């Protein structure tokens, strides 16, 4: 599904990702953890080319993103992304936020896009907010809309970059709930998060990154209970 | 409409006469309409020569531009005939004698052009013969000469205390003194310091209008029409003997 080979990424002279090798199988939920600045976001953003790749290869469903002939917009349709800051379009209502990309990119007719949008809103528990503007929503509601918006493109893979860390604590639960549901339905997911509870409960595999490399990866129980590397141990001692 | 070509004085064509209407009493705006001695004179000349004219206020510098580009037919703006200008333009015969005179407050110690050199500040209108005359006395771009956009601002400057004298065409300042007796300004004449100047209607180089216009001007001078207009504006009779024929 996703195959990352010798991925390198530099900003100027600052090498942020150094030789990353990761494979994600269909329906797998991979959780990425690590200290701030370790390159987690950059890694995720390389998976749908929001960052240009400096070296190595990223294959999404067998297509090489680093190949110049690849139509990046086609690939992005297959890969949905949810950001820490929601990034809803503030000048459009909730349902318009969801309908925009299917209509403009996939040429779905408005009625069909709307029906699909309402269905997704029901799924995230917000069917009554279809006509509201993003500003009138709470953080948790915004993030659920953002998830619905990404799902509207019917992606095969979903990327989440700290989807709950901009939320008030009592709203974290409702967002994680939607993500758990998605995992249960078999979505392939790569999730950067500090929510260790979610990692343990939902993750098939946890990757610990530090300083631009994958330090350790394992099933959650093993990684949390028997970390092998010192860096992993010291990080986990701080956050658990 | 305005004519795009000059020369042809075909009867049905309206000629474009351009002026800078900021030079009372020759041409100025009276509630938006261009009036003045030049205007009455020009209309009389046109009538005499059988021409249709339309007077447009375009400002001083554009006036030259328009005649250069031949987009106007006649420049009428109390324009002094001098050799420099004659190189680029044609003029009709002189129709007015002017001398630069000095406007000063009544109690001023300036009595002649020579007194202007005694560390006096003089206000003039930029690009006029008044400016040239003063620069002739004090030297070009002398610090004591203040150049304004128009004579109004120059006179205002003296009235507000920023200049000791204004040098401009006699008619302009005589008219001012007549209309503003309360200001207690007087006019000083100094024919040794300032040369006489003659105004002419300015035409594009090679204009075919010159002959017709000259003839009409001569007629007006002979039949007394010119004197009538002169008297109306300047309250005195003209001394035609001082006007050369060419």
């Amino acid at each position, binding site marked *: 599904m996703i195959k990352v080979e010798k991925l390198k990424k530099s900003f100027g002279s600052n090498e942020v990702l150094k030789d990353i090798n990761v494979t994600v199988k269909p329906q797998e939920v991979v959780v990425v953890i690590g200290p701030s600045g370790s390159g987690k976001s950059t890694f995720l953003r390389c998976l*749908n080319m*929001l960052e240009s790749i400096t070296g190595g290869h990223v294959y999404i469903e067998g297509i090489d993103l680093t190949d110049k002939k690849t139509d990046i*917009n*086609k690939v*992005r*349709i297959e*890969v*949905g*992304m949810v*950001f820490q*800051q929601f*990034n*809803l*379009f*503030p*000048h459009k209502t909730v349902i318009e936020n969801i309908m*925009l*990309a299917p209509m*403009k*990119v*996939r040429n779905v007719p408005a009625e069909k896009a709307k029906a699909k949008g309402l269905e997704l809103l029901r799924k995230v528990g917000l069917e009554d907010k279809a006509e509201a503007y993003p500003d009138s929503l709470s953080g948790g509601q915004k993030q659920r809309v*953002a998830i619905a*918006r*990404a799902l509207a*493109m019917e992606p095969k893979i979903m990327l989440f970059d700290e989807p709950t860390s901009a939320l008030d604590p009592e709203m974290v639960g409702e967002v994680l709930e939607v993500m758990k549901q998605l995992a249960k339905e078999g979505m392939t997911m790569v999730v950067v998060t500090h929510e260790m509870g979610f990692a343990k409960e939902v993750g098939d595999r946890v990757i610990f990154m530090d300083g631009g490399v994958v330090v350790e990866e394992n099933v959650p129980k093993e990684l949390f209970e028997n970390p092998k590397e010192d860096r992993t141990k010291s990080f986990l001692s701080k956050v658990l | 409409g305005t004519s*795009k070509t000059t020369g042809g004085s075909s009867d049905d064509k309206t000629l474009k006469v351009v002026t*800078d209407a*900021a030079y*009372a009493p020759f041409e*100025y*705006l*009276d*509630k*938006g309409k261009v009036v003045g001695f030049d205007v009455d004179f020009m209309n009389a000349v046109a009538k005499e020569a059988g021409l249709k004219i339309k007077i447009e*206020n*375009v*400002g001083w*510098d*554009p006036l030259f*531009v*328009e005649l250069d*580009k031949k*987009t*106007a037919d006649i420049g009428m703006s109390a324009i002094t005939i001098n050799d420099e200008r004659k190189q680029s333009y044609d003029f009709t015969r002189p129709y007015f004698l002017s001398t630069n005179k000095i406007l000063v407050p009544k109690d001023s110690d300036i009595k002649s052009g020579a007194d202007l050199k005694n560390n006096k500040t003089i206000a003039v209108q930029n690009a006029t013969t008044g400016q040239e005359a003063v620069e002739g006395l004090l030297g070009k771009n002398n610090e004591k000469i203040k150049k304004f*956009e*128009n004579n*109004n*601002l120059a*006179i*205002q400057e003296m*009235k*507000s205390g920023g200049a000791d004298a204004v040098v401009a065409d006699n008619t302009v300042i005589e008219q001012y003194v007549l209309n*503003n007796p309360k*200001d207690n300004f007087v006019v000083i004449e100094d024919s040794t310091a300032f040369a006489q100047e003659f105004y002419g209607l300015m035409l594009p180089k090679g204009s075919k209008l010159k002959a017709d216009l000259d003839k009409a001007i001569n007629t007006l001078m002979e039949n007394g029409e010119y004197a009538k207009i002169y008297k109306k504006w300047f309250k005195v009779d003209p001394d035609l003997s001082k006007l050369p024929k060419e």
Partner: protein
Amino acid sequence: MDIRWDILAEYAPFFLKGTLLTIGLSIASILIGTILGLFIGLGKLMRNKLLALPFSVYVTCFRGTPLLVQILLIHFAVVPLFLGETNAIAAAIVTLSLNAAAYIAEIFRAGIQSIDRGQMEAARSLGMNHVQAMRHVILPQAVKRMIPPLGNEFVVLIKESSLASIVAAPELMYWGKAMQGQYFRVWEPYVTAAIIYLVLTLSLSFLLTRLERRLATE
């Protein structure tokens, strides 16, 4: 101080005419300036630095020199090149528009750049291409943010149109000067002109505040 109400009454119709021309000049210039400004702003935003250069030079020149020089040059030198004759109103509109365009280009660029990067990233990650993202996501938000500074530029234009009096365009200030020239009074014409300008700019500011408030609640 004695105020000569009689000459004020006499000049009232001219002030009115002048005010109308002032408003006309300002409106024409803001319209033309905005259209030009959009193009120049987009030009400056081009990735290719070489293509963007002429637009940067344009903005630098018009922002780095006094409007007074610009208006004199355009009136006496540029307009005659094209029309074959000077035309004060044309020169005023051309100068004010070209000058405003330089400022509006910057407003436009700032408006686009003020939109959070996340908006573009969200749109791109949904599969939209650059043009689609600009058109449906970035521009609608940027335009809304541009309204206050555009309104401000309009206020500036009203004031700067007074420079058209230098080339004898018969706008408000021109009649102020004419009145001063005819009666050699200073306070009446200039204070009157100042008050009219103040009324114009304050009314516009008031309208803009209301417009902004309406847009904000939308």
